[in-house]
């Protein structure tokens, strides 16, 4: 089963609602009580702490405030629901033993709240291979006055060893570099998309050759009254059926070559 990260974003606090019931009635018949664990990377190890049990059919919301007493750093907290508590220290991200579903995946509600509003999506994250890369097109920037736009790159890997990679933000049409940032593994890297010179008709393309990540787009009014959060699909989702991941390679090869010049 997957992990559920407690997100972070400027002016907001993250939370996760875990659900101990299957998202459908046919892939899993019986659901048992599950161990809630929080896992984070610290000092070159994965650390885990047991947070309690979740009975069948129950839901529990866990906020960043609740885990801050356990995690004494800015590490990304990863919640999980499993059949056992996780080892307190490990060299590799613990594998969560629990029944899985696929139509749809067993998810949690991942949210961000300001004092006045909140936003969420149904999500989960599994470890990316360290050889992975990222290409995404993000038409989410909002231009109203007082609106702030951020890209949040969510990555976890099996290894707890800290590494980073360069992410480039370009204009897809002119292939002009508009910004560059460092993305760190096992974390949620926040990058401002404002003041990069993008206009209403520009299509931003985000390229990272050395790391995979889930690209989340977060917009907020500067007072936090209004929030928006959504992720983009991987390029494979531009097609259906057949060899979708080969189709993704075609797009990635083209754009990695274009943006390398």
């Amino acid at each position, binding site marked *: 089963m997957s992990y559920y990260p407690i997100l972070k974003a400027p002016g907001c606090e993250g939370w996760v609602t875990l659900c101990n019931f299957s998202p459908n009635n046919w892939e899993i018949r019986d659901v048992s009580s599950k161990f809630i664990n929080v896992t984070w990377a610290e000092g070159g190890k994965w650390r885990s702490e047991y947070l309690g049990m979740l009975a069948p059919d129950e*839901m529990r919301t866990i906020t960043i405030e609740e885990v801050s007493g356990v995690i004494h750093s800015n590490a990304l907290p990863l919640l999980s629901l499993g059949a056992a508590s996780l080892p307190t220290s490990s060299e590799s991200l613990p594998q969560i033993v629990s029944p899985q579903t696929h139509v749809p995946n067993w998810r949690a509600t991942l949210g961000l709240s300001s004092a006045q509003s909140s936003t969420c*999506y149904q999500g989960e994250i599994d470890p990316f291979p360290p050889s992975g890369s990222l290409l995404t097109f993000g038409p989410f920037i909002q231009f109203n006055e007082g609106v702030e736009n951020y890209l949040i790159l969510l990555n976890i890997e099996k290894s707890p060893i800290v590494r980073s990679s360069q992410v480039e933000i370009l204009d897809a049409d002119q292939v002009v570099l508009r910004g560059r940032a460092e993305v760190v593994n096992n974390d949620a890297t926040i990058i401002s998309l404002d003041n990069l010179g993008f206009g209403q008709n520009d299509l931003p393309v985000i390229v990272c050759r050395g790391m995979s990540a889930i690209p989340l787009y977060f917009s907020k009014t500067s007072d936090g009254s209004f929030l928006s959060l*959504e992720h983009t699909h991987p390029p494979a989702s531009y*097609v*259906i059926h057949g060899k979708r991941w080969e189709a993704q390679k*075609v797009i990635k090869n083209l754009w990695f070559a274009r943006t390398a010049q």
Partner: protein
Amino acid sequence: MLLYMERIRKKLWNIMQPLTHKPKVLGVPVSDLFIWRNSKDWKTFFELTDIGGLFVGCDDSVSRFVKFLVFDNDGTLLLEKQISLTCNKRQQIDLSKFLCNVGCEFGTFSVFHSYTHQVVSDLGSYVSDRGYISYCYVGAPLCAYVHGNHDAIAQLSNGELLPLGGISIRTREYRLQHALLSATLYETGIVNHSAKKQHILCRVISTSNGEVIKEWKVRLGSRGCHIFPCEVNQSQAGRMVIISHLVMARPLIFKIKNNKLDVFHG
């Protein structure tokens, strides 16, 4: 033996019941059936991207466009619009410009791309637009974004529409993994992306005692959609279950609290 029996049980749920049917002819475009909302309180925008251009770059020798097909909530075609694509540019389409005087406040729409590069067909794949929509509620300074959900419908070269959503032999439950809280209005959008009319049952269950708090039934035409409004009381935090013959009746949730909109998929 138990494992074997479990495998057989799951096979019975899957055999001849794909999530998404495959069009027989390669090269035909596929689209989601996105939900549009249009009223004094609601505006809908679609982020149009030239998908063909992402595969091969900007080839000016090929004219690329999309056909927007807009349906009412019963799935009846209301209008069709052709829009030229601008390669590697963002094109935000304001649906309300199409939807003056259509007589209903919500429905579905599809976006069919005119061009499928040979490289896509050679992989046995179909170009599919499951792109991004934003909804603006009561003139808010910020729209709420959500991605597409299903590879729902194909348009054949003769213009015929082919819904692709799979139908289950037995009824299935889609259990939304989200806590429904008080003081919040949840408007749950369900689309029938199958070729046949479907009976949809939307049920809200109390998280404290498992009792059914509310229940709605609707009969949805192919390509049609319905929006179930739901509020729970202070003492009745709940969760939602959608029961139908759709293989995956994944809903779109419009969550409104203090006049502020959040939107997400199940």
